[in-house]
């Protein structure tokens, strides 16, 4: 692999032997150093107070008795291209090591080549289940750097769209979690409800996914007229349907058997691992950025933070199910309190002139042209802004050197950090638990690999 620009085509010959990742893989016990071995076994964190391991599994099996297999990138239940190497003693998992990078798209490098105006399209493809929230985090960071205020209506539109996006992301999670546990009818219901939200996104932003709707300085376009009754229809149907899901899943013995008491996480372990979002709230820590560090207009809206009690899979399922209902409550309040006014800040540095004026005046045309080709200059400095994405705290760290392109764009992906809890949660569980653990952590590999 001499020249980094060599495309895969020229090394096709030695391709099949190349799937092994050498040092990144799970090595035999003899070849792993002590810290790494204890981390993979998940014991470095497992506090002795929580003796959770059944006595029947002794964790220091000799190398030849255990089997190392990998739940590789092309696996139905790894929610994308996550590769997990598991050391199994028959059916029980002794060691786990996630190997990621199979969807690494070099987005942070591409982010440095795109101007601030174009940056949204790059960032929105990271967590492809909640694109609006990615763009929101990026735009808020840029606005903090530019130190500009956006009009009230834009704030409320952003909040409405990100809550709708949270609902659609949790619906996809309900669908895939049901499918992972064998309830494939849940897949059909979850995706069917999500189509309502995607139809509204298509009506507002023109696209179902990767909308590029939230931009630095406000939103791309105003809400379509008559949007209130669209959103009301969405809220009513999905609110009624959440009780159907509850009925479909919560009472079932198989579902309960595989979710209750499986893969618990304690608050200290979650904090030490830097885990955020529903995974952290399931351990009883009431930390939701929308409540703790309110951004947009979350302090003027009435909603509950859902916190679990036992920290196991069933709590994470219950949290996500109830968060859909909370999002519906927020969306209903957004409909009532939506202020009027312009949907984008009138600061000419950031917002292009309206289409109509371009035809008339030359300056508007030049201004429009310069803004979209070169983008706007951002004063030098650095900023870290964080929002609550359906998976946890999504942070965007931008360093700007005064030009129109960010000097360094780093996105703190919640799934990337939550994924580290895998070896801890799978410790001592059986293979079927491993599937539920991956599903309840809800990793989106687009943002894990960036």
């Amino acid at each position, binding site marked *: 692999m001499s020249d980094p620009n060599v495309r895969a085509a020229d090394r096709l010959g030695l391709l099949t032997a190349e799937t*092994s990742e050498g040092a990144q893989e799970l090595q035999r016990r003899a070849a792993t150093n002590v810290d790494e071995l204890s981390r993979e076994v998940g014991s470095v964190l497992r506090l002795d107070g929580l003796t959770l391991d059944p006595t029947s599994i002794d964790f220091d099996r000799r190398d030849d008795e255990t089997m190392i297999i990998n739940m*590789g990138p092309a696996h139905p239940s790894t929610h994308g291209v996550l590769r997990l190497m598991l050391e199994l003693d028959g059916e029980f998992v002794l060691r786990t090591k996630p190997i990621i990078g199979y969807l690494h798209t070099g987005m942070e490098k591409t982010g440095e080549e795109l101007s601030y105006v174009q940056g949204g399209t790059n960032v929105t493809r990271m967590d492809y289940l909640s694109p609006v929230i990615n763009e929101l985090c990026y735009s808020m960071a840029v606005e903090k750097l530019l130190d500009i205020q956006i009009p009230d209506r834009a704030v409320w539109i952003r909040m409405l769209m990100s809550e709708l996006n949270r609902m659609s992301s949790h619906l996809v999670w309900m669908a895939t979690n049901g499918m992972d546990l064998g309830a494939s009818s849940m897949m059909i219901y979850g995706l069917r409800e999500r189509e309502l939200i995607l139809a509204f996104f298509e009506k507002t932003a023109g696209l179902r996914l990767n909308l590029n709707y939230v931009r630095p300085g406000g939103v791309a376009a105003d809400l379509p007229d008559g949007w209130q009754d669209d959103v009301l229809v969405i809220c009513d149907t999905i609110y009624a349907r959440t009780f159907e899901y509850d009925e479909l899943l919560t009472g079932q013995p198989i579902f309960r058997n595989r979710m209750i008491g499986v893969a618990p996480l304690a608050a200290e372990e979650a904090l030490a691992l830097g885990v955020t979002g529903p995974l952290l709230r399931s351990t009883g820590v009431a930390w939701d950025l929308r409540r703790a560090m309110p951004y947009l207009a979350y302090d003027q809206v009435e909603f509950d933070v859902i916190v*679990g009690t036992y920290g196991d899979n069933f709590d994470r399922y219950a949290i996500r199910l109830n968060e859909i209902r909370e999002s519906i409550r927020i969306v209903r309040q957004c409909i009532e309190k939506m202020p009027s006014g312009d949907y984008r800040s009138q600061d000419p540095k950031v917002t292009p002139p309206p289409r109509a004026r371009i035809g008339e005046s030359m300056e508007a045309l030049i201004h429009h042209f310069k803004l979209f080709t070169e983008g706007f200059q951002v004063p030098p400095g650095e900023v870290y802004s964080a929002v609550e994405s359906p998976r946890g705290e999504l942070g965007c760290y931008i360093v700007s050197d005064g030009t129109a392109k960010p000097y360094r764009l780093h996105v703190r992906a919640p799934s990337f950090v939550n994924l580290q809890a895998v070896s801890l949660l799978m410790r001592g569980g059986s293979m079927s638990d491993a599937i539920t653990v991956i599903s309840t952590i809800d990793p989106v590999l687009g943002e894990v690999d960036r």
Partner: protein
Amino acid sequence: MMFVDQYLPILGLLILGVLFGAGSLVMSAMLAPRKRPSDAKLAPYECGIVPEVEPPQRFPVRFYLVAMIFVIFDIEVVFMYPFAVVFRQLGLFGLIEVLVFSLTVFGALLFLVSEGALSWGPVKHLVPGMPARTSSSTIVRINSDSDQAA
């Protein structure tokens, strides 16, 4: 004569079986677009990864215990066949005999289950005294006024 027509249907069935088996083999050989499978197709499928570590031959005992259960029931059924053919002539005596036989086999099953052959279920970490939880009873709602810090 009686001898032939009694065994004729068995012969017919045998021929049909052979024909069907051979037929499908020949058809697939004829129609298959690619005769010799490439080495990739012979390799085991490990989610797209080419496995260098060949799977170990040693399997934990747990798998063999489950296999034992199958063997037990298999033998039981094999002995049931001749009984099923003549159970009318045997009458009550035959019935009791078979019940005794299946009870002894059931004893073997009980032993295996006590050995933990069937305890495969997901490993549960149940907190003692955990109530039966529903999706709304297991969560705590924190609204803005009762804002408890973490």
